[in-house]
């Protein structure tokens, strides 16, 4: 069965928050696994043409996920997530930052704090992500930093593929 789910994406500039909601046609158990197991995260976390590659992951409160976003040219952008709270199969929250390959945060780019929650909707699962930035201008910076270029380039590639 192919269901097209609509994503809701809301920007609350006053509170510097972004709220993303999306339903998935799978059990909470599966969706939770896809968000919390490195071998599954690596398959989808990075937007094409980037690929996520986990170096280490310790999914516990106080633990860290250290991974690289690897670009098509092999360029690595190192990122980490520090887990702040986990409620099994329900929600987890943490803090994101750019870092080096040893997990040492770089100050030049701002991080965000987020909370991801999972709710069963019959057979499906509703995932809600709330992302807090210190300033939304931080987000502008992140977009400007390269994903925009990388991403727009990716879409360009896709156009080329489709037109070939």
């Amino acid at each position, binding site marked *: 069965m192919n269901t097209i789910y609509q994503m809701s994406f809301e920007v609350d500039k006053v509170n510097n928050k972004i709220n993303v909601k999306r339903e998935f046609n799978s059990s909470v158990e*599966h969706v939770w696994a896809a968000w919390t197991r490195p071998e599954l995260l690596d398959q989808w976390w990075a937007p094409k043409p980037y690929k996520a590659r986990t170096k280490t992951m310790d999914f516990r409160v106080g633990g860290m996920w250290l991974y690289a976003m690897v670009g098509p040219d092999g360029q690595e952008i190192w990122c980490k997530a520090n887990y702040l709270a986990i409620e099994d199969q329900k929600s987890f929250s943490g803090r994101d930052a750019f870092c080096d390959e040893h997990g040492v945060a770089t100050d030049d780019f701002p991080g965000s704090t987020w909370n991801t929650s999972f709710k069963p909707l019959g057979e499906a699962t509703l995932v809600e992500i709330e992302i807090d930035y210190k300033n939304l201008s931080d987000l502008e910076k*992140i977009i400007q930093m390269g994903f925009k270029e990388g991403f727009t380039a990716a879409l360009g590639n896709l156009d080329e593929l489709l037109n070939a």
Partner: protein
Amino acid sequence: MRRDIFQAIADPSRRAIITLIAIQAMTPNALAEHFDISRQAVSKHIRILDECRLLKKEQLGREIYYHLDPQKMKEVADWIEPFRELWEVKFNQLDQVLQNLKKKK
């Protein structure tokens, strides 16, 4: 007070007003009929939207009609679009991963 476009869209009533006048120009009274909140509250939202320079005003007889300035709205969309698309791509990839998990069972 300096306002920007993001203050305009931060409030659900203002988003509703934007949606309404995006379809057709409306007077403040006509707008107020769509809301449970007081007329004063609606007027305040209209004023904020105006200060965000999202509105175009047109005087027809005694009535003022408000239009949406689509160029201003585009600023929001343009700014956030790459980030929104990023999540959309990731989620489509996640759909695939979940489908594979199901097959394995």
